């Protein structure tokens, strides 16, 4: 069996940043396992710009952002294995991996960092009626075909779902000569960033139909048409509102799901809201020495936040292998309620936290001129006004160690949205 201080599952933005942080914290034997044939993860196919404004103060494309971190990994001579699938992670941190080159092998890891990212919600999970012809792709699959492989999936396109990848692909397909006829969104608001709605739809006159969904798919061999209809406030199609669009391509951009089969098998406790692991202030799961960061933990809006989070996971994994992650005081629970859907992390051990701790969360609906409030038990300690909050964008509050240390015996921190 091989031995490594830290094994990182996934060589995308989270895995890369975690590896660099762990190395900077003085950990020698680090191994990144990546199933694709190159490092960088999904950023390689995200050729549009807008990445890195927070981290590098400039707008980079996905591949450029990825390369900033790949370069650091290469310069630090951190080991990585490509074309390698992790088959299993045990609860005592034995990682079983497989590749064509090395066959199946096991690694005993001092710490494991989960950085597997997420997957797109497929058609099978959407309950769309109709035929099952060729021509239906997840937006990310189409993105890979166009940007990496150089193939066009089709010429006349309808997009269901207004997630960012769907919006980006509306522009991309248009620029490559396809006609994108409509983007239908089930919810009364878009899950995508404002910037993408403006630059990917408005710029090209592509209509966005909110509160609409696909109710029929036609075509026996290949897609020939889809029908969309308006939905009521329960998401049910309203008879008489159907519109038929002839098309050869339907792209689905209906949400992302953290990819946690390995975590579940290892016995990692999962959050039913994020579909990612439940973690403490150190981004450590219920299994000691198993950390999580990036989209496998919760789906992020900006990669900058993934890198930042992964940096913390890498530092904490380094502390763990060096025996510096203390046991310390009892955990304080963080509860998300009244508009806040979840928080990451969901518990805090004050002794183990840094001077500042960023708690990230998402809201469940669009809130205008509302307040993000934080309560220490029943006392309101933070009350920040926000002009707008939307489910598509992550929110955050920053907790200070000093303030928490002033409250010994604190049991519960509540994050909620208030009107006043």
């Amino acid at each position, binding site marked *: 069996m091989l031995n490594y201080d830290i094994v990182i599952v996934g060589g995308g933005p989270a895995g890369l940043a975690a590896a660099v942080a762990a190395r900077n914290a003085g950990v020698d034997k680090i191994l990144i396992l990546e199933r694709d044939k190159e490092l960088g993860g999904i950023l*390689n196919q995200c050729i549009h710009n807008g990445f890195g404004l927070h981290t590098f103060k400039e*707008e980079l494309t996905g591949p*450029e952002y990825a390369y900033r971190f790949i370069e650091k990994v290469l310069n630090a001579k951190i080991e990585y294995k490509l074309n390698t699938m992790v088959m299993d992670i045990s609860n005592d941190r034995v990682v079983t991996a497989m590749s064509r080159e090395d066959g199946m092998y096991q690694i005993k890891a001092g710490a494991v960092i989960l950085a597997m990212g997420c997957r797109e919600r497929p058609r099978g999970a959407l309950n769309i009626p109709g035929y099952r012809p060729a021509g239906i792709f997840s937006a990310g699959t189409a993105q890979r075909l166009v940007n990496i492989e150089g193939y066009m999936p089709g010429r006349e396109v309808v997009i269901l779902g207004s997630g960012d990848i769907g919006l980006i692909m509306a522009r991309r397909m248009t620029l*490559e000569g396809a006609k994108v006829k409509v983007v239908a969104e089930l919810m009364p608001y878009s899950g995508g960033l404002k910037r993408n709605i403006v*630059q990917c739809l408005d*710029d090209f006159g592509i209509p966005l139909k909110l509160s609409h969904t696909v109710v029929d798919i036609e075509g026996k061999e290949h897609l020939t048409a889809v029908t969309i209809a308006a939905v009521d406030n329960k998401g049910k199609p309203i008879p008489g509102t159907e519109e038929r669009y002839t098309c050869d391509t339907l792209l689905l951009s209906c949400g992302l799901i953290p990819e946690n089969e390995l975590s579940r098998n290892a016995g990692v406790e999962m959050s039913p809201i994020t579909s990612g692991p439940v973690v403490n202030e150190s981004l450590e799961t219920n299994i000691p020495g198993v950390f999580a960061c990036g989209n496998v933990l919760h789906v992020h809006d900006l990669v900058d936040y993934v890198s930042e989070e992964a940096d913390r996971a890498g530092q904490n994994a380094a502390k763990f292998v060096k025996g510096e992650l203390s046991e310390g005081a009892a955990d304080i629970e963080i509860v998300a309620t009244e508009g806040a859907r979840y928080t990451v992390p969901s518990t805090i051990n004050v002794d183990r936290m840094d001077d500042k701790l960023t708690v990230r969360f998402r809201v469940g609906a669009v809130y205008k001129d509302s307040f993000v409030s934080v309560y220490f038990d029943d006392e309101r300690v933070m009350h920040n006004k926000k002009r707008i909050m939307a489910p598509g964008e992550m929110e955050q509050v920053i907790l200070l160690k000093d303030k928490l240390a002033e409250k010994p015996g604190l049991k519960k921190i509540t994050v909620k949205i208030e009107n006043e």
Partner: protein
Amino acid sequence: MEKRELTCIGCPMGCAITVELENGEVLSVTGNTCKIGENYAKNEVTHPERTVTSTAVILGGDKPRVSVKTKSNIPKDKIADVMKEIDAAVMKAPIHIGDVVVKNVCETGVDVVATRNVEAL
């Protein structure tokens, strides 16, 4: 007087901005919450610009396409022309981030550059 409604893209806030114009001159910008919004709105109604990203054909490389971008913004109304010049380009591996793919694309004074490395096979 003309009124234009915009969504600011300067940050995730996405402020709803209203610009009042007369004969192409900006009279007022409202709804923004910072200077970025004001600048964005003024540029957007007078000379809108975009960065174009796409891919170009590359021969003899370890990847079938190389991703590219305009090194800075180009006028929005030139997007289609810029795409044509990018599509016409045929590169040879190796190529590295920042290498010029199309010089001075469509006389904009802006180069199209590679955004990833493609090594020779």
